[in-house]
């Protein structure tokens, strides 16, 4: 049922945003949509903190002899990594769009554990406060990877504070994952079978499995690191009887799967956007859905490809190399299926679709350069150079951040009830794309030429490529600022959005107003069709 026609301007009816006012109504809310917004504002703040460190790094690298003290530069890249990985990328899509949309997409009133959902945000903030305290008190210089024995014995910076921040925020990630798994298992609307789940939900299910199974390992690793740093227990430092390579195994056992925590939800967003703006069911739904699960499972078995030059057994390296190639297959399957979805589609070019195009291109490059690093003899030359930095950012920024921006634009009318200015948004998307490539493409070349990562100063022949990279970063920065401004404006002043401005399929668009009411649906939705049934009859909330 629906009393509002899709095109009629919505009256300002009671919704989750205006149902209640005052700070208590936000800080004590158990509404998944409000918690999603709490997360959205927090991670955006962390994104700009992390971005500010990147600005410092790119400025330093304008000159071969650097601009800042070495210690300052070392702290800049460490804090850029810690903030961006643990406080932006890991929670970025799951805790914001995932939190907002998973219940809406499966036809539930909320997540299974609304209070645990709120708790997870508080835990995240506590973790963030520890990390920010470490920064304010002088910073950390271990690199985001915290390699021992440097971190456990040699560094004179606030390692413990930052490590506690990462440790604590991990629990927020575990709780979010747990909440999603239970919600997706137990709270699907009648008729919402596993085969009808939107691919966004499948991606979040796979992500949640990694969060729940992987995150405890980083927590254990950090505790061991703390035991060695504070109590001098010999775990990683050979001078105390420990093994430094053990740290790397433990660290990457979480941190490699964690890159899939960061990219899988982005893939979910792209599946939704491509289906909507091609007006077509996703080609190979089952393959795309199960490739998420395959990535989650195989992703746990490839950590050793970070240790090809670390003194790990050659035969272990060989096995890790092989499985790393295997995990490339489900990623490739997704790219091919998205492309095939566009075949004979009805394609339009609104901003979310532009970000999806960008994602496909940049993720393809990011994925293919991952094959270079899985190839052992090539990795020996490339590991710990700028090639790795470029590869990682093609996946994490070119992939994840573009998917995040695409998703924010796509669901902006749903979240705020307003439309964003389409032309500004298109221009910003193009600026982001151009700036991104100019920043990171030169880093592939300078990496193969041999420039190591984490260098405050570098050989003169690398300067041209570094200056190009810094120039690109300034364009990229502009591309991030423009959406901040017009989205903030549109939230208050943008034209009111109809319930379903994109004519998209899915319960969140067809069965719930924009913005949704506190309990999401006026009536319990019942699902009678496959996901992405763009060709079928328009059946808005049919009983």
């Amino acid at each position: 049922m629906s009393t509002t026609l899709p095109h009629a301007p919505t009256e300002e009816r009671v919704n989750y945003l205006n149902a209640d006012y005052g700070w208590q109504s936000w800080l004590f809310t158990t509404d998944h949509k409000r918690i999603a917004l709490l997360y959205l504002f927090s991670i955006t703040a962390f994104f700009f903190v992390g971005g500010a460190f990147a600005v410092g790094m790119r400025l330093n690298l304008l000159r071969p002899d650097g601009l800042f003290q070495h210690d300052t530069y070392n702290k800049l890249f460490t804090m850029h990594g810690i903030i961006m990985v643990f406080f932006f990328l890991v929670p970025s899509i799951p805790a914001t769009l995932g939190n907002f949309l998973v219940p809406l997409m499966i036809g539930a009133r909320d997540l299974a554990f609304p209070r645990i959902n709120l708790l997870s945000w508080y835990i995240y903030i506590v973790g963030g406060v520890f990390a920010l305290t470490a920064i304010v008190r002088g910073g950390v210089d271990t690199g985001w990877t915290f390699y021992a024995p440097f971190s456990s014995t040699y560094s004179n910076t606030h390692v413990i504070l930052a490590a506690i921040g990462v440790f604590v925020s991990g629990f927020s990630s575990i709780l979010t994952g747990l909440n999603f798994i239970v919600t997706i298992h137990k709270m699907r609307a009648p008729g919402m079978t596993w085969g009808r789940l939107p691919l966004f939900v499948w991606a979040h299910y796979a992500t949640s499995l990694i969060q729940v199974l992987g995150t405890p390992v980083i927590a254990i690793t950090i505790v061991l690191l703390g035991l060695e740093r504070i109590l001098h227990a010999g775990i990683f430092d050979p001078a105390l009887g420990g093994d430094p390579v053990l740290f790397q195994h433990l660290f990457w056992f979480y941190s490699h799967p964690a890159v899939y925590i960061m990219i899988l939800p982005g893939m979910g967003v792209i599946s939704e956007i491509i289906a909507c703006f091609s007006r077509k069911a996703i080609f190979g739904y089952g393959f795309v859905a199960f490739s998420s699960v395959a990535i989650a499972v195989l992703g746990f078995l490839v950590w050793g490809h970070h240790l090809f030059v670390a003194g790990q057994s050659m035969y272990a390296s060989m096995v890790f190399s092989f499985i790393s190639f295997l995990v490339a297959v489900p990623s490739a399957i997704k790219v091919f299926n998205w492309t095939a979805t566009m075949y004979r589609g009805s394609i339009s070019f609104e901003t979310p679709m532009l970000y999806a195009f960008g994602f496909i291109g940049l993720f393809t490059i990011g994925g293919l350069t991952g094959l270079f690093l899985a190839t052992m003899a090539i990795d020996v030359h490339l590991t710990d150079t700028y090639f790795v930095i470029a590869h990682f950012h093609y996946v994490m920024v070119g992939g994840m951040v573009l998917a995040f921006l695409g998703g924010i634009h796509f669901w902006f009318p749903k979240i705020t009830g307003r439309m964003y200015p389409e032309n500004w948004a298109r221009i910003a998307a193009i600026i982001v794309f151009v700036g991104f490539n100019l920043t990171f493409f030169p880093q592939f070349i300078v990496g193969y030429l041999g420039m190591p990562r984490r260098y405050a100063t570098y050989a003169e022949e690398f300067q041209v490529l570094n200056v190009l990279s810094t120039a690109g970063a300034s364009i990229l920065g502009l591309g991030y600022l423009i959406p901040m401004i017009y989205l903030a404006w549109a939230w208050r002043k943008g034209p009111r959005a109809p319930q379903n401005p994109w004519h998209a399929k899915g319960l969140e668009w067809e069965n719930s107003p924009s913005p949704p009411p506190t309990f999401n649906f006026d009536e319990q939705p019942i699902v009678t069709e496959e996901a992405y049934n763009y060709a079928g009859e328009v059946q808005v909330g049919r009983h």
Partner: protein
Amino acid sequence: MPTLSLVPPRASTGAGQVDALYGYLLVVGIAMTVLIFVVVVFFALKYRRKSPDEPPPKPIHGSIPLELTWSVIPFLFMLVMFAWGTKLYFDNYTPPRDTLDIYVVGKQWMWKVQYPDGQREINELHVPTGRAVKITLASEDVIHSFFLPAFRLKHDVVPGSYQTFWFQATLPGRYHIFCAEYCGTNHSRMIGWVTVMEPVAYQNWLAGSATGASMAEQGQKLFDQFGCVTCHVTDSQGRCPSLRNVFGNPVQLEDGRTVVANEAYIRESILNPNAKIVKGYKHDVMPVFQGQISEDNLLQLIVYIKSLSASTAAPAKAAATQVQKQ
């Protein structure tokens, strides 16, 4: 050095092989990227929505043959990457029998290099062309990584263990040494130069930098100085096992295991003698040297103990003469 080259200089036999594999990956990678780019742009233009109320297109739910095609064909290309990359990796990290051994110790923030004949350098490495060189790496503090871009090689320098790799230089010149594993404040200053020389020039350089005592001789001096000689007497009558002909041979342990006496075993037996006790000998006879001896000295002791084995007798002089033969 040209400012805008796309590959670093190729100065070893392995560098060309790595570049060839890199070329294969680039061709496959660029072909895939172009393919996807062209198809996406083509679809986007051909199937663009011509009017807002265009009827929704017919759904296409998928195709098993297509899914298999685009899973299997890329995977076959990847299998070539895997096999080729693994072969090269095993080659690069498995030194041939007869090598010129050079020892590198990393510490915050410098590289200390020792040659078998006793020459020592800091942040400089000299190697001849046409001869397999084995580098043994040790660290005095944190993890470093010894990176030689012109040879397409690096290996982490892991405290508490020895790591090795080898190469055969081909092109005389001066090339970068970088530390590639972040190691603290002056990580980016932990850099140096590897100088590749023709064998004759190398021989002259060795002669000009001679210090008098070879590594083995320096090790022998330490062997006396630390009092090792009082128990490890050269026949087998001492309280501790004789070290003659130990290196490179199997050793029977009291717990029944047999291990081969390599550098790692000798290192452990000096630093922590109780870890492995030779059959017929007692615990707690030898003092623990963990923290008592520098990595440089430890390497000299090991080279000395190596020289006591018949198969590798007088390694220092042998290496030098072999260079001359080139």
